[in-house]
């Protein structure tokens, strides 16, 4: 089995920050931590080459660096790629993850890496590689390499990979269907009983972990502020011109409300499939508060209501789609010079 190892300038012994602009290069055989991999592999696998790139160079030229690194990796005709471990080094983690993604997509090469659970490379690239959990610093090198080597051997031999928890890598967000000897109802009851007894139990459906961001700075001058209205309550122009789905939405709509002073039920309706739409049918302002916003705008309470309002349905909508809607709407608001937003949800 042929293994290629990816390292940054530091672990390859080129130097520290002063050498972080090191351009991609290849060396035959193992380098640095690769020597430990060689020991762990014994005669089961061979570290045929090491590909090295400086973290700053990679981070600043991701596309070009990835192309070059992948070419160098390919030249060794490997069966498996090992990247890092990167511990809690952010740029290194992102580089390792990005190399793994490139290897998977361009070469169909399975890849293993190791990162601390807060390394930004983990969230970005966990789908593309088997990333084992490491401590935040190189103190955990030996244990990390041992876990990585075991997974690499498994991948190289094309053995079936068990679940993330059993194998010790971070979940890649993949669910596999299989039959269990005991049915779901019995398992659920056992889990509930274990919980009531205060005994350990393991969920079969982990809830997604949500992110936090530092709060944006507040408005300093309300009198000149441009404020946008956004809703996940499914209020759209009557007839739903953009065919936004009533649940599990994959799109959002942008609608011109310049000159509109009230959400009249003859013009707007809720298409949301996740709540009783009776009151939305009586007066859509109970979800998108346009009438009172116009009133306050007239009174000069704030500067101006943004001419576009954004809408989608927030029911069964995947976190990934909702995040994308947010990024796209946020980008539009930023370009339009909007100073704040009010988002109403049902």
């Amino acid at each position, binding site marked *: 089995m042929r293994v290629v190892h990816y390292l940054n300038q530091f672990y390859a012994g080129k130097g520290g920050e002063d050498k972080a602009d090191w351009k991609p290069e290849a060396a035959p055989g193992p380098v640095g931590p690769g020597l430990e991999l060689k020991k762990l592999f014994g005669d089961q696998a061979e570290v045929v080459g090491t590909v090295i790139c400086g973290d700053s160079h990679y981070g600043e030229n991701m596309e070009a660096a990835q192309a070059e690194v992948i070419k160098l990796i390919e030249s060794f005709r490997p069966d498996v790629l090992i990247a890092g471990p990167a511990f809690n080094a952010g740029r290194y983690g992102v580089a390792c993850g990005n190399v793994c993604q490139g290897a998977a997509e361009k070469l169909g090469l399975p890849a293993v890496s190791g990162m601390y659970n807060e390394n930004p490379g983990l969230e970005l690239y966990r789908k593309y590689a088997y990333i084992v959990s490491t401590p935040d610093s190189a103190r955990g090198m030996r244990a990390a390499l041992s876990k990585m080597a075991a997974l690499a051997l498994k991948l190289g031999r094309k053995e079936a990979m068990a679940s993330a928890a059993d194998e010790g890598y971070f979940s890649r967000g993949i669910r596999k269907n299989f039959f269990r000897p005991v049915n779901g109802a019995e398992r659920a009851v056992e889990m509930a009983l274990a919980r009531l007894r205060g005994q350990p139990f393991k969920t079969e459906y982990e809830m997604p972990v*949500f*992110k*936090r*961001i530092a*709060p*944006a*700075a*507040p*408005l*300093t001058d*309300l009198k000149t*502020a441009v*404020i946008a209205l*956004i809703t*996940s*309550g499914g209020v759209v122009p009557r007839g739903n011109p953009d065919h936004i789905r009533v649940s599990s939405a994959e799109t959002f709509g942008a609608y011109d409300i310049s000159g509109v002073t009230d959400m009249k039920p003859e013009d707007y309706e809720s298409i949301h499939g996740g*709540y*009783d*739409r*009776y*009151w*939305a049918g*009586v*007066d859509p*302002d*109970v*979800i*998108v*508060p346009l*009438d*009172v*916003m116009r*009133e*306050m705008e007239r009174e000069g*309470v*704030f500067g101006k209501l943004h001419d576009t309002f954004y809408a*989608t349905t*927030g029911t069964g909508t995947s*976190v990934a789609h*909702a*995040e*994308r*809607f*947010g*990024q*796209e*709407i*946020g*980008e539009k*608001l*930023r370009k339009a010079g*909007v*100073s*704040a*937003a*009010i*988002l*109403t*949800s*049902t």
Partner: protein
Amino acid sequence: MTREIEKAADIPVVQIATIVPIMLTVGTNRIVPGVAIPHPVGDYSNGPEGDRRVRRELLERALKALQTKIDEQTIFEKE
């Protein structure tokens, strides 16, 4: 969605909705608890005028939230 808008636009975003724990879970920073799931910013139980009063109060609170400097997720309750 709220969190990503705030991040992408770098502007304060206040969310008005009824299930506060969900807003806390998804990372909303400025939270105003709404009236009810099917009518977060209105309430016709006291007629059309009562509905508008409720909406006005909620929006004034939302504007106050947008002008308030916060360091962590904050719920703006009725005073």
